[in-house]
C-alpha cells in the first residue's frame, strides 16, 4: 500500500469536505449572481397584491369601517375586514402558546399597528393608495404600556373578549425548589441583588415577512410561498386554523433573507392572503414594509428581572432566586415549548454550581405588539444569561473581587459533568475554566487591568467586561418539549442515486446559516460521498420530511444528528451489499471514509459509489433495492454550548460615549463542522448583541405609540460602529450527539450583551454606579456620571 504523505491526506480531506473543513459555501453562487429566490421574487400569473390597514391606536373600540372610498379606486378587488372573516370563522386564530390572536380586529384594537383590514388590488401601488382611504371609526380607550400597569388591580381589561379573563394576567409559572432556596438564603453570609430590565428589541431580518398564497379553486390545492422558519409546523397549523386538508397544502419557504426568530410565528397577513386567494380565486401576494415588520411581528424580550444570589462566607454561591415579569403584548403568541411559560429561562444558574434555585415568572397582557421570544435566542436563554452574568458582576463588586476570580470560584468543574442543575437541566459537557483561560490569554487580561488602574488614577474611565455564558439549545426531547403539541424532533431523508451522488432533504430550514454546505459535510464525513456530490433540499413541505424547523439553535443538534443517523443507516445497508459483492460474511465487512473492505484484505476496496450502483443493479437475494432512508431524530437531551467573552471599553466622561476597544470571544460549541461558517455565525451574533447592548430599542410613549418603527429610529449597527472581533475556541464535544456538535447560531447573541454591559459597569463601579439598563446609550451613561458628580 502506498505511503500517504501529510499533504496528500490533507488534499483528500479538503476534496471530501467532511467535518472540520472550511468549505466555501455551495449556496453562494446564486446569491452573488443576484439569483437568490426570496418570497418577494415570486410572481405568478394573475397575482394580486395585499396591503394591511393597521390601527393608529394602541387600544380602541372599533365602531365602524367604511371601505367605500377604497373600493371606488380602479384596480381594487376587495377590502377584507374582520367581519367578513368572522363569517368564515377566521377572525381569530390560535397562537403557538395556546392563546388566541385576532386575525383582523372585530371588537377592539389592542395595539398600535394591529391588523384591521386588508386591501387587495391589481398592483401594490393601487393597494397602498386604497389602504389610505379605508376609514375606521375608533373610540379610543386607555392604553396600558407596561406589565406593571397591567397587573394593577382595577386596570382596564385588554382581553375582555376572553371568557373568564377578568384581569391582564397571562400565566404564573415556577421552577426550582422554593424551600431549599429559602434555606440557602437563610444561612447566607452575603446576599447580592440585581434589578434589571431587558428592553424590547426586534430581530429585524433584512428581508421582512410575507407570502404569496395560491389556492387553486378547481383542485383545491393550496400552495403558499412564505417566509417560514418552520414550514412543516406551519402547514399543520394552517390545516387546523383554516380547516384546509393538510395533504392539499404545500408550504414553500424559499430563500430567506434572515430570520432570527422573526419568521417562526404565524402572522395575520399569511392567513388573510390565503383566505383572500381562496375567496377570489387568484394568487395573492403580501409583503410587509419595514414599519409593518417592526410594529407588528415577533419582537424579543421586554422582560423585568429581579433576583438575588446567596453567598456563603467562603465566597461560594449557595442559592439563586429570580422574579420575572414579562410584557407579552396583546396576545400570548410566543413560539416556545408549551410546558415552559418562561421558555428555558430556568437555565439561569448558568455556568455556576448553585445548589438551590427558585424562579417565579408572571406574564401580562399590554397594548403592545405580541411576541417575546424571537431574536436569536433559545426561548429566553438570552434573558437568563444576561441576568446571571450581570448578577455575578454585581457580586464581584460587592465581594471586592476581580470578576474573573468570582467566576472561577463558582464554576461547575469539568469533572462534574454530566451536571444536574438545581432548576432541572442535565448539562451534557463543559470545561468553563479552560474557555476562561483561553480568553484571558488572548486578551492579555492582567496587562489591561494594570492599564485600567493607571487610567483610573488619572481619572480616565476604562472597563473590562467578562461574561461566561452557558446556553441550552437543540430542543427536544419530544416527550418534554413540544410546540403547539408537535414534538420537537427533526428529520433527514437521504437518497443516494446509482451514480453515487446524493440528495439530502431536511425538516429544518436555513435563513442564511449555510445548511446546503454544512449538512452535505456531515454526509461526506459519515458516508464518504464528497460534499460537492450532496445536494441539500429544504423548505418545501411536499418534498422534505416533517420537522419542526430552524430556530433556537436546533438545526445542528437535531437536524444534524438526524443527518448523521440516516447516513449510518445507509452505511449499514451498504455493508449487506458489500458482503454480497465480496462474497464475504457481513460481520467481516469494514467501512472507513467511503470504502468497504473485508477484514484482513485492506487493498480490495468497494467504494460507496460502487455500493450505490450495486444497490440498483446487483443486489443480494431478498434485499430491498435502492440506497435511501429517512431518520426522525428525537434527541435524548439538549446541548449546552458555552464560552467566555471579554470586552474592553473606554468611556468619554464629557459625553458619556462608550467606545468598544476590544472584543474577545471564545466559544465552545462542541465539534465544528465548518469552522468558517461557525465563525461567521459568531460574528453575526456578536454584532446583534452589540446592537442590543448599545443601540436597538423598541419603546412606546404613554399612549402606546411605537417608537422604533423604522430604521431611522430603530438603530442597527453598521460596519462603522461594529467592533472588530477576535475569536477563539475550545472543543468539548457533546457526549450524546452523534458527531459531538452542540449548535452555535445564537451563542454570541446570548452571551455578548452582558459582556458589553459589564465592561461599562466595570468602568463605572468605583463611582458607585451598579447598573445601567440596555441599550447603554451615551445619554444614559452621561446622566449616570452626572448623578455621581462626575462632570468631565
Amino acid at each position: 500500500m502506498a505511503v500517504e504523505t501529510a499533504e496528500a491526506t490533507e488534499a483528500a480531506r479538503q476534496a471530501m469536505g467532511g467535518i472540520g473543513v472550511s468549505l466555501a459555501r455551495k449556496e453562494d453562487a446564486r446569491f452573488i449572481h443576484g439569483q437568490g429566490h426570496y418570497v418577494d421574487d415570486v410572481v405568478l400569473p394573475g397575482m394580486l397584491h395585499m396591503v394591511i390597514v393597521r390601527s393608529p391606536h394602541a387600544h380602541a373600540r372599533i365602531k365602524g369601517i367604511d371601505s367605500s372610498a377604497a373600493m371606488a379606486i380602479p384596480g381594487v378587488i376587495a377590502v377584507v375586514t374582520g367581519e367578513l372573516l368572522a363569517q368564515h370563522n377566521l377572525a381569530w386564530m390560535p397562537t403557538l402558546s395556546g392563546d388566541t390572536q385576532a386575525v383582523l380586529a372585530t371588537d377592539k384594537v389592542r395595539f398600535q399597528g394591529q391588523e384591521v383590514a386588508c386591501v387587495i388590488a391589481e398592483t401594490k401601488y393601487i393597494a397602498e393608495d386604497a389602504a389610505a382611504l379605508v376609514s375606521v371609526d375608533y373610540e379610543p380607550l386607555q392604553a396600558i404600556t407596561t406589565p406593571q400597569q397591567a397587573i394593577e388591580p382595577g386596570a382596564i381589561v385588554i382581553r375582555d373578549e376572553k371568557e373568564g379573563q377578568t384581569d391582564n394576567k397571562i400565566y404564573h409559572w415556577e421552577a426550582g425548589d422554593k424551600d431549599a432556596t429559602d434555606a440557602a438564603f437563610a444561612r447566607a453570609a452575603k446576599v447580592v441583588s440585581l434589578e434589571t430590565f431587558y428592553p424590547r428589541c426586534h430581530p429585524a431580518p433584512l428581508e421582512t415577512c410575507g407570502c404569496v398564497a395560491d389556492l387553486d379553486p378547481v383542485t383545491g390545492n393550496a400552495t403558499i410561498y412564505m417566509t417560514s422558519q418552520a414550514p412543516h409546523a406551519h402547514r399543520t397549523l394552517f390545516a387546523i386554523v383554516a380547516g384546509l386538508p393538510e395533504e392539499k397544502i404545500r408550504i414553500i419557504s424559499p430563500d430567506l433573507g434572515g430570520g432570527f426568530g422573526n419568521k417562526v410565528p404565524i402572522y395575520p397577513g399569511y392567513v388573510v392572503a390565503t383566505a383572500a386567494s381562496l375567496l377570489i380565486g387568484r394568487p395573492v401576494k403580501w409583503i410587509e414594509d419595514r414599519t409593518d415588520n417592526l410594529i407588528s411581528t415577533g419582537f424579543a424580550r421586554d422582560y423585568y428581572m429581579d433576583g438575588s444570589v446567596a453567598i456563603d462566607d467562603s465566597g461560594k454561591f449557595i442559592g439563586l432566586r429570580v422574579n420575572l415579569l414579562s410584557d407579552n403584548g396583546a396576545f400570548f403568541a410566543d413560539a416556545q415549548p408549551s410546558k415552559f411559560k418562561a421558555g428555558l429561562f430556568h437555565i439561569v444558574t448558568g455556568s455556576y454550581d448553585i445548589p438551590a434555585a427558585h424562579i417565579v415568572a408572571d406574564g401580562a397582557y399590554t397594548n403592545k405588539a405580541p411576541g417575546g421570544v424571537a431574536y436569536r435566542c433559545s426561548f429566553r436563554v438570552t434573558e437568563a444569561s444576561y441576568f446571571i452574568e450581570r448578577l455575578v458582576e454585581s457580586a464581584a463588586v460587592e465581594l471586592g473581587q476581580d470578576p474573573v476570580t468570582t467566576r472561577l470560584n463558582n464554576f461547575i468543574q469539568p469533572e462534574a459533568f454530566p451536571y444536574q442543575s438545581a432548576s432541572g437541566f442535565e448539562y451534557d459537557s463543559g470545561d468553563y475554566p479552560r474557555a476562561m483561560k483561553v480568553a484571558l490569554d488572548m486578551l492579555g487580561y492582567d496587562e489591561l487591568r494594570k492599564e485600567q488602574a493607571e487610567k483610573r488614577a488619572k481619572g480616565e474611565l476604562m472597563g473590562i467586561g467578562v461574561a461566561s455564558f452557558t446556553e441550552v439549545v437543540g430542543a427536544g426531547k419530544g416527550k418534554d418539549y413540544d410546540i403547539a403539541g408537535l414534538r420537537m424532533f427533526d428529520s433527514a431523508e437521504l437518497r443516494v442515486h446509482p451514480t453515487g451522488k446524493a440528495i439530502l432533504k431536511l425538516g429544518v430550514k436555513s435563513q442564511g446559516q449555510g445548511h446546503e454546505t454544512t449538512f452535505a459535510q456531515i454526509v461526506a464525513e459519515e458516508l464518504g460521498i464528497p460534499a460537492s456530490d450532496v445536494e441539500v433540499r429544504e423548505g418545501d413541505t411536499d418534498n422534505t420530511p416533517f420537522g419542526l424547523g430552524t430556530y433556537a439553535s436546533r438545526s445542528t443538534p437535531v437536524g444534524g444528528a438526524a443527518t448523521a443517523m440516516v447516513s449510518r443507516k445507509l452505511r449499514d445497508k451498504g455493508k449487506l451489499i458489500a458482503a454480497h459483492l465480496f462474497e464475504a460474511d457481513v460481520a467481516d465487512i469494514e467501512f472507513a471514509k467511503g470504502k468497504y473492505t473485508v477484514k484482513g484484505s485492506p487493498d480490495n476496496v468497494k467504494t460507496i459509489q460502487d455500493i450505490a450502483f450495486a444497490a440498483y443493479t446487483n443486489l443480494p437475494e431478498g434485499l430491498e433495492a435502492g440506497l435511501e432512508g429517512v431518520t426522525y431524530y428525537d434527541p435524548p437531551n439538549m446541548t449546552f454550548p458555552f464560552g467566555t467573552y471579554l470586552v474592553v471599553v473606554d468611556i468619554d466622561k464629557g459625553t458619556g460615549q462608550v467606545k468598544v476597544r476590544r472584543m474577545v470571544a471564545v466559544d465552545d460549541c462542541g465539534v465544528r463542522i465548518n469552522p468558517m461558517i461557525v465563525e461567521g455565525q459568531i460574528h453575526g451574533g456578536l454584532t446583534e448583541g452589540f446592537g442590543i447592548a448599545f443601540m436597538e430599542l423598541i419603546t412606546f410613549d404613554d399612549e402606546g405609540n411605537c417608537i422604533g418603527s423604522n430604521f431611522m429610529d430603530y438603530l442597527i449597527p453598521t460596519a462603522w460602529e461594529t467592533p472588530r472581533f477576535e475569536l477563539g475556541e475550545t472543543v468539548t464535544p457533546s457526549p450524546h450527539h452523534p458527531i459531538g456538535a452542540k449548535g452555535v447560531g445564537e451563542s454570541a447573541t446570548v452571551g455578548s450583551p452582558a459582556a458589553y454591559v459589564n465592561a461599562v459597569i466595570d468602568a463605572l463601579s468605583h463611582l458607585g454606579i451598579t447598573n445601567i439598563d440596555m441599550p447603554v446609550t451615551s445619554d444614559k451613561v452621561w446622566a449616570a456620571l452626572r448623578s455621581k458628580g462626575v462632570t468631565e
Partner: protein
Amino acid sequence: MKVTFEINGAEKSVDVEPRTLVVDLIRTKLGMTGTHIGCDTSNCGACTVLLDGRPVKSCTLLAPMLEGKKVTTVEGLAKGGKLDSIQVGFHEEHGLQCGFCTPGMMLVGKALIEANPHPTEDEIRWGISGNICRCTGYMNIVKAIQHAAAANATENTAGVA
C-alpha cells in the same frame, strides 16, 4: 410616461407612472429581482444600484430620474460568464450569509475600490456604512472587499507587465 436609460449595458425604454420607484421598476417591470427592498427609507441599502457608476439607493429614486443614465445592478456584475472580482471576494471570504444585502454590498464595494483602489479598513467600513447586514457582522465583508482590491491590483500589475 416613457423613460429611456441603459441597464447593464442594454438600452431600455419603458412606459411607467412617474411615481414609480426605481427599485420597483427594476424588480417588477424589468423582472430583475437581485435588487432587494429592505427598509423603504434609504437606511439599509439592500436596494443599492450604481447610477453612472455611483452607488445610489433605488428605493428613493423616481423612475424619470433614470432618463439618459446608466444603471448597473447585481445582474450586470459578471461579464461573459466571468465573475467580477467583488463576487469572487464575497464567495472566498464568506462575505455573505442570507444573501439579502449582498447585491447592494457588492455594488458599494465595487464602486469603493474603483474610486480608491487601496482602501484602509476604516475607509472600507466608512464606505459601506450606508448598507446594513444583519448576518455577518461585517468582518468578512471587509475582507471580501480587500480580497477584490488585491485581485484588481494583481490584474492591473499583470496588465502593465
